[in-house]
């Protein structure tokens, strides 16, 4: 049975491989970064199990690892892009030979993910389900991981690339993304510290101290803009939503002014998403792609998308005031 942890093992092997290749090139800081990512991928479940059983030091060591990542990220130098022209002739030859067949592995990822998600309840292997169905939210992730691996096998056969080169090519891309790749997980760790430390509650408290509670529209405005700002700070609308909802949504908008809960919740969450478009804290969406596309400015994606976000905020506030009290 395929479980999410198997996908993590593949990722662990990938990062361990990238670490070894960097070690060989004496790029110590990057080698350290990828090692520290490989550890939770390979040993994460064991660490969590140990903590459950009362042994906390593995997770504390991982915590030290997170601190070390901060230092290593500052030290790691970006890898200069490879000389493209050197392999241009070889690439032209494969393109001429394969033509549109080159698209097959790339399209295999979405098509297989789709087929595996939809087929998951029916696919069986040796008496048990092929894909672990225990946690519904994980099915799509397991399907995606499996699809990527199958697509890799197809790509290797199609292009007649020796499997070892796949590691070198992955390492090239991983190094290109560099520190941006570890930012999302580090931010998730920050989010949980903020949560534990009560940052959200402190902000909600500050906000509700200044809000004119009698005005329906003022409450709505603070709720919507609060979601944008808190999402931008925490990097995640899912973290901001419960804070603003308990602080303003439930007591003021629903209980006092009679807002419609379904519209208030759904449109509020989407207003929070506008905050995601504005912030470097949502690294997976805003910082990783600018490294992945080799842009010179790490904030280039935010720079092109902020006008869309601002207009969307206005549109959502308009929709909220139209529907929430309808």
């Amino acid at each position, binding site marked *: 049975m395929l479980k*999410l942890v198997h996908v993590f093992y593949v*990722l662990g092997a990938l990062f361990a491989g990238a670490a070894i290749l960097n070690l060989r090139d004496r790029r110590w800081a990057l080698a350290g970064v990828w090692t520290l990512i490989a550890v939770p*991928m390979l040993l994460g479940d064991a*660490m*969590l199990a140990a*903590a459950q059983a009362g042994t906390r030091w593995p*997770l*504390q060591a*991982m*915590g030290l690892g*997170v601190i070390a990542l901060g230092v290593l*990220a*500052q030290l790691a130098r970006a890898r200069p892009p490879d000389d493209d022209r050197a392999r241009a002739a070889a690439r*032209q030859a494969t*393109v001429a030979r394969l033509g*549109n067949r*080159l*698209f097959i*592995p790339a399209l295999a990822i*979405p098509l297989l993910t789709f087929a595996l998600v939809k087929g998951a309840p029916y696919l069986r292997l040796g008496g048990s389900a092929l894909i672990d169905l225990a946690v519904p*939210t994980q099915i799509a*992730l397991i399907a995606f991981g499996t699809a*990527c691996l199958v697509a*890799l096998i197809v*790509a290797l056969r199609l292009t007649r*690339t020796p499997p070892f080169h*796949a590691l070198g090519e*992955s390492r090239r*891309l991983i190094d290109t993304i560099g520190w*941006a790749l570890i*930012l*999302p997980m580090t931010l*998730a760790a*920050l989010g*949980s*510290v*903020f949560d*534990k430390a*009560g*940052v959200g509650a*402190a*902000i909600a408290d500050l906000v509700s101290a200044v809000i004119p509670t009698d005005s329906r529209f003022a409450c709505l405005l603070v709720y919507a803009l609060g979601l944008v700002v808190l999402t931008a700070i925490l990097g995640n*609308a899912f973290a901001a939503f419960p804070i603003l909802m308990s602080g303003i949504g439930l007591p003021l908008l629903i209980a006092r002014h009679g807002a419609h*809960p379904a519209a208030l*919740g*759904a*449109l509020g*969450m*989407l207003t929070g*998403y506008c905050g995601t*478009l504005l912030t470097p804290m949502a690294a997976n*969406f805003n910082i*990783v*792609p600018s490294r992945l596309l080799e*842009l*010179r400015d790490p904030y280039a*994606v935010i720079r092109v998308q902020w006008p*869309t976000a601002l207009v969307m905020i206005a*549109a959502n506030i308009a929709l909220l005031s139209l*529907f929430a009290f309808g």
Partner: protein
Amino acid sequence: MISYWPLIGVAVVIAGFAIRLNPVLVVVVAGLTSGLSAGIAPGDLLALLGKAFVDSRTLMLIAMPLPVVGVLERAGLREHATAWILGFARLTLARLLIAYLALRQLLSMFGLIHVAGHAQTVRPLLAPMSEATATRMLGPLDDETRDRVRALAAATDNVGVFFGEDVFVAFGAVLLIQRFYDAKGIHLSPTEIAWWALPTAIAAFVIHAARIAVFQLRLERRFARARRERTDG
């Protein structure tokens, strides 16, 4: 009485980004300041950091398509994507990106979030296609324009996935809202909540499509002006 001390962490984040320290370092320092100022014991703070880090491993799935993409790029996928898209003689940058936006929104409305993304579709396919189409329309792109075209491709993917999510199939956000209300004694079905995402989805499509069109119009004007100046001079 609520303590405001943990807000120092937020200040550290803003200051750190403002002076352009490495974001990972900023985030780590902010976490430590916020945790310690809230009175969390150092041992607990380390365990908390470690646990949250391990718990968020799924975020790294973004790296899963990199081996395929790497192998295909080595075989010339980006060059082929460029040549292929240039076969569509009437395609413009705006048409390409708006079509992608519509497709991405529709797919994610049905819960198909992972079928596209920055690693698996934007870098190997959409970005080179956008660049090629823009180059055919305008002539060779300068570095600044090339970066902005690529960034717009990434932004289009973000807008598509964010504002398509959760309309027809109740996924993460809708379930979170439902569970939140459930715990507070307000009982709603996921579909009741999900439908309210439709007006925003339509608004997002219209707004971002209009922005793409304006982006293209401005590029065309700028390049036309530059050409005139060259011929006049």
